[in-house]
């Protein structure tokens, strides 16, 4: 009798209906980890190993070299201009899509997705066709001595185009789900439009907004295709970091290429770490927002 009881205790607990068996679970976890390791972690490691393969000194030399510095500066500048603009446009677009009913709303939603569905090369070419020397506005721009293509404005335009959907896409479902009752409550309580935005709407969407901005920023710094078409690849002038990496790579300057690439990857990692840190810091508040 007592032996039976012990036997029963030794057996694994009965599985609930939604539990997979232990082996299925292990297999699934193993596959997921292996996939992550092979396709995400390994390449990242390779980048850093290759970058430091000739020592830290070489790595820093490759980064502080004037052309590389110029590329870093240009990349940061382009991101610093395009991310705030997309933040603004994204909030506006999400606001009117989530809050108002109007004709052409479906078209607007489709248009927001356009940069995702279109090849970045085509996005670049659009600007060449419009602002290039033989483009629609080319002659007028030349007569007025305004340079867009093969200059900073072109790079910024291409970056804005490519990264436009991130903020809006992140906010639209969030704002639709949250609805506008809190804003209505604020109106009745006497708040002005600006007060409602700063004190009610923004706190409600700030995490989604932050996530959208971080993604937008990561893509803005890393964009290659569209920027490649409009930049003109002038070393030290219109080369962004990704373009600089490509040039170094094509010159068989592997270690230097990987050094700049490592820096680019590092920027992405810092972005992710910042997001995680913020989430951790405000975890209680975040949970409160989600449960509601």
């Amino acid at each position, binding site marked *: 009798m007592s032996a039976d009881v012990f036997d029963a205790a030794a057996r694994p607990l009965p599985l609930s209906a939604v539990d997979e068996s232990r082996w299925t679970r292990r297999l699934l976890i193993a596959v997921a980890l292996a996939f992550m390791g092979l396709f995400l972690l390994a390449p990242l490691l390779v980048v850093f190993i290759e970058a430091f393969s000739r020592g830290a000194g070489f790595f820093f030399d490759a980064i502080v070299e004037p052309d590389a510095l110029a590329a870093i500066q240009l990349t940061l500048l382009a991101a610093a201009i395009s991310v705030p603009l997309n933040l603004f446009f994204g909030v506006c677009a999400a606001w009117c899509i989530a809050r108002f009913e109007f004709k052409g709303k479906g078209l607007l939603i489709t248009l927001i997705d356009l940069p995702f569905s279109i090849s970045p090369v085509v996005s670049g070419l659009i600007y060449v066709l419009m602002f290039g020397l033989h483009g629609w506005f080319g002659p007028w721009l030349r007569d007025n001595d305004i340079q867009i293509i093969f200059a900073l404005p072109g790079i910024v335009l291409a970056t804005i185009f490519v990264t436009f959907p991130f903020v809006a896409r992140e906010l639209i479902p969030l704002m639709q789900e949250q609805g506008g*009752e809190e804003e*209505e409550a*604020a109106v009745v*309580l006497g*708040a*002005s439009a600006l*007060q409602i935005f700063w004190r009610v709407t923004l706190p409600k969407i700030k995490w989604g907004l932050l996530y959208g901005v971080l993604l937008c920023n990561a893509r803005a710094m890393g964009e290659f295709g569209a920027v490649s078409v409009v930049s003109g690849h002038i070393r030290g002038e219109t080369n962004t970091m990704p373009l600089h990496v490509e040039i170094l790579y094509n010159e068989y300057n592997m270690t230097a290429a990987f050094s700049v690439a490592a820096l680019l990857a590092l920027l992405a990692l810092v972005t992710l770490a910042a997001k995680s840190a913020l989430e951790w810091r405000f975890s209680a508040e975040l949970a*409160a927002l989600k449960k509601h």
Partner: protein
Amino acid sequence: MNIDIKAITKRFGAFAALNAVDLQVRDGELLALLGPSGSGKTTLLRIIAGLENADSGEVLFGGENALERHPRDRGVGFVFQHYALFRHMTVFDNVAFGLTVRPRAARPPKAEIARRVTELLKLVQLDWLAERYPTQLSGGQRQRVALARALAVEPRVLLLDEPFGALDAKVRKELRRWLRRLHDDMGLTSVFVTHDQEEALELADRVVVMNKGGIEQVGSPAEVYRDPASAFVYEFLGDVNRLEVEIEGGAARLAGPGGPPLGGVTGRGGPAVAPAVAYVRPYDIDLVPAAPNDAGFTVGVIRHVQEVGPLIRAEVDLHGTLLEAAKTVHHGGGEDKTVEWRQGDRVRVSFRRGVVFAADANKPLALAPFHIPGGGAGEFHAVRT
């Protein structure tokens, strides 16, 4: 402050949410807008608050045009169905919001705001939860925070959209009584929307019954319950039996061949047969055991008996039509003079009172029991009341 609503019309596309609605809300009263979903009650409330624009018509607050004013300047307190508390703010900040968004000149100093918020939280008995976030509160607590927030701006009018809709039955009852007291103590003019007839009848000074974008009846709870102005009101307010009948020679009988007589109809003589609908409440039906010689009476069979709290309900099959009868139980003490109802019993069914809506008449007619001389069968005289 009294509110005058004049010919308010609102359409959503092809759907007429409100059709030239007129309504007067008296100063200091607690008014219920009662109706099924889609009857326009919430739309009307939102138009009063300014959260929705009327297509045409007027809303006057104490005689002055309210529609010209921005919702934030109307001096209205609004409690939303799902409370709409600011989820990222503490209870304290939620209640303080209406005061802190005032323009600098009209904004009370910080200490004064704190004092008023604490006072309000004490009023709703939640001062001990001031630092919590809305998600950490129960439904009833959120409801009270929403109320305190609405009251913080000292509104002239308090509007509540399904204020107890999301609460469980017990909390709902408590909050109802509490709201009634609060309304009386603060001398507010309040309008609340509900689809729950019990809530409207228990809480309100006057009830506005709405249907399909129009008002069916306005009156005190007793008035709308006792004298429903239309078939809709009768059906919507409380349990009621709906019977297809025919009126013939001053009496109503169940429609169809061989339909048993139900009672006399006041003010309807003549031999002409008219189709009509009769409404009788369950506790206006008497069931008495049928005698073997009761062939001429209205006799039915009890199909089912059910005891619900203090009520006994019986389902009676009367000539193929199912009726619900009800009476109160006399538990213990005192002699129970009423007869026990048992499943399968043959019973004589009599209707103490009811209302008949004839297809060719626009006024409801009263259904009254027959006077049966000497308990004999066959002869019926309508009792004139």
